[in-house]
């Protein structure tokens, strides 16, 4: 048996490897588009389904792959690599995976090209379909949208794994031996994605040492710009690409069931067609680069995904407004506590207007003194909006000031910027105080929902905490007059009390005995 590869076999093998490389790129990029892929099975063979698998060809991707290959095939030391990376809407980017199609020198001379190699390449593509759903980048790519996008880049040459960070992992998809070498397909992927979590991609500052000029420093002249993985073929740009039928050689495969020696009866028939790339070439990189840099991520992406901060109810709006107003009025901090019973009652009457409305001061004025309110009812908004009215503040101010100084909870004037929205929103959020479990029944209660806090843990939530700590009772020793009076009375009444107790000595003794 002739061990050297016949010229026909060699041609076939080269063709298989070329189209295998192109299909590999298609599978990888399509798996990172962020959508579920679905292709139909067909019992009748169609001419363009290489390796008997229905894998669509996105023209731009084929174009990029062919450009990267530049007529060459993967060989020893020359690998085809697809780099998948993530780019946030703020411009930070990070490499997630590198898929490598490599060739080594280990040859399998005995293997039959148009039969075994072809079928094994088909199996390898199926494995690639399965493995692309299993690496961490898949779940990230399914959630791409407003906050980040997934990009791909194809290059040919030496594999560059340095961008994956430390401790990256490798998974081997498979190998196929051929008479000219062994094809290996593998993926190296970053693993310290895990803390970024497929649940939630947070906008943190570059933790991985992301280089902002990531794309500038490429040492290889053949490096291509990054492309988003979420375009629709032909929709986002006006470039015209050759359709599959024109650019791809049609594959019609017949296999023989006869013993291997009669292989000559089975041959690929194909019709090479003009590639017709033409003018599309010129426009392509520019369009994409432009589209990528200029366009807001929204525009590149199809159906929007849920991203960013979920919509928050009224409170923050109140908070910001109130906060600004708070900044203006030095007395803001004063009214948080129910200083004295009388004052607390008063503040309570002052508050409670809002019920979620950031109404005008006039509205609030009208509602003053209409309702009795419970503890800690919406003081802030009224304090804030009432800041300009002297009357309520004047009533309360003298009584509260001394307490305010003692209570750090209540008077945080030095709070930095980041805290103030929170506090502002807490105080201005416009609810009338306690949640529905409160004991006060004679007025309308609205749930107090402090912004930025979750109230699904019932025993102690932020709102409860604030309520409890902002309404400390009046310290009795601080009301001096009453104290003084009672002291004198107590002293006078002592002898009388002693006399009474002496009379009841026997009862006390009996009681003590019961305790023993």
């Amino acid at each position, binding site marked *: 048996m002739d061990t050297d590869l016949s010229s026909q076999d060699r041609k076939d093998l080269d063709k298989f490897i070329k189209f295998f490389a192109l299909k590999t790129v298609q599978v990888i990029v399509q798996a990172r588009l962020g959508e*579920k*892929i*679905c*292709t*139909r*099975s*067909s*019992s*009748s*063979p*169609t001419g363009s*389904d290489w390796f*008997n*698998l*229905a894998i669509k060809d996105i023209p731009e991707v084929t174009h990029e792959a062919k450009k990267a290959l530049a007529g060459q095939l993967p060989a020893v030391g020359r690998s085809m690599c697809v780099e998948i990376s993530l780019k946030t809407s703020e411009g930070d980017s990070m490499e997630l995976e590198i898929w490598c199609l490599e060739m080594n020198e280990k040859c399998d001379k005995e293997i039959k090209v148009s*039969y075994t190699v072809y079928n*094994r390449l088909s*199996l*390898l593509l*199926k*494995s690639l*379909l*399965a*493995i692309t*759903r*299993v*690496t961490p980048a*898949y*779940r990230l790519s*399914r959630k791409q949208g407003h906050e980040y996008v997934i990009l791909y880049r194809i290059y040919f040459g030496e594999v560059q794994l340095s961008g994956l960070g430390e401790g990256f992992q490798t*998974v*081997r*998809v*498979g*190998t*196929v*031996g051929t008479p000219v070498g062994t094809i290996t397909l593998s993926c190296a992927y970053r693993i310290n994605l895990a803390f970024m979590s*497929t649940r939630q991609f947070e906008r943190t500052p570059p933790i991985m040492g992301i280089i902002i000029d990531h794309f500038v420093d490429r040492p290889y002249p053949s490096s291509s710009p990054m492309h988003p993985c979420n375009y629709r073929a032909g929709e986002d740009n006006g470039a015209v690409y050759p359709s599959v039928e024109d650019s791809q050689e049609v594959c*019609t*495969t*017949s*296999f*023989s*069931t*006869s013993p291997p020696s*009669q292989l000559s*009866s*089975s041959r690929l028939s194909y019709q090479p067609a003009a590639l017709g790339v033409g003018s599309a070439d010129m426009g392509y990189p520019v369009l994409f680069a432009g589209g990528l840099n200029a366009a807001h991520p929204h525009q590149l992406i199809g159906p929007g995904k849920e991203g960013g901060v979920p919509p928050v109810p009224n409170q923050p709006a109140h908070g910001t407004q109130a906060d600004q107003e708070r900044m203006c009025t030095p007395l803001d901090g004063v009214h948080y506590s129910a200083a004295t019973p009388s004052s607390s009652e008063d503040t309570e009457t002052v508050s409670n207007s809002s019920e979620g409305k950031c109404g005008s001061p006039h509205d609030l004025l009208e509602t003053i003194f209409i309702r009795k309110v419970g503890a800690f009812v919406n003081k802030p908004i009224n304090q804030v909006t009432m800041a300009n009215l002297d009357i309520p503040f004047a009533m309360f101010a003298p009584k509260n000031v001394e307490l305010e100084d003692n209570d750090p909870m209540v008077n945080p004037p030095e709070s930095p910027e980041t805290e103030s929205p929170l506090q502002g929103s807490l105080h201005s959020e416009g609810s009338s105080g306690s949640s529905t479990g409160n004991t006060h029944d004679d007025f309308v209660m609205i749930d107090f929902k402090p912004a930025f806090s979750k109230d699904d843990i019932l025993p102690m939530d932020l709102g409860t905490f604030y309520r409890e700590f902002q309404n400390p009772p009046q310290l009795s020793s601080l009301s001096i007059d009453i104290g003084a009076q009672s002291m004198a009375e107590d002293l006078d009444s002592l002898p009388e009390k002693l006399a009474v107790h002496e009379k009841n000595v026997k009862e006390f003794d009996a009681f003590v005995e019961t305790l023993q």
Partner: protein
Amino acid sequence: MVGPGRSRCCGPSGAAPAMNCRAEVLEVSVEGRQVEEAMLAVLHTILLHRSTGKFHYKKEGTYSIGTVGTQDVDCDFIDFAYVRVSSEELDRALRKAVGEFKDALRGSGSDGMGQISLEFYQKKKSRWPFSDECIPWELWTIKVNVVNLANEQERQICREKVGEKLCEKIINIVEVMNRHEYLPKMPTQSEVDNVFDTSLKDVQPYLYKISYQITDSLGTSVTTTMRRLIKDTLAL
């Protein structure tokens, strides 16, 4: 397609595997409601690799092969997605088998442990009066342990963990597939039904059968059920 009569196949009946039968075992621990999706994910991944397009034989002993389509499936109870062959018939057959397995696992006498087996076999025609033999060449066994979880937080953790475990299983399966060990020779037209299941409209998997076993708390096998999933077969 499949002849009636005795079939001597390796499987959970306890007989030793025939020679050249490759055996792989996978183990998963899942919550009750995840059983179905986890089993389907593994079985579909195996069958993706063990299915081809429909063969069309022509004269001169040549044949052409149809195209296999694929589709992504998202799991509802597991943070996981997998690829399966685009064939509703095949999906239905697998769902039926997995459904029976799931019901058996839930049934009495089970402490939540069982295994489901996917066996690929070849038929070998024997001369009369002997009936056809089924010779297995690959056996996949998935051992399942059903866990009970107390609260939602544990369930959420289980969703993620089982997803990660399934990713590992897929990598294991792919590794085995790409060893390129024994595969039946491509058959002639007259032999194709001895190697492939040609009953499906759109794809052609190798001949396979699915069976399962439930273990009771003593560790012994309580139920052995063999079901043939080729459509026009008599049920046992």
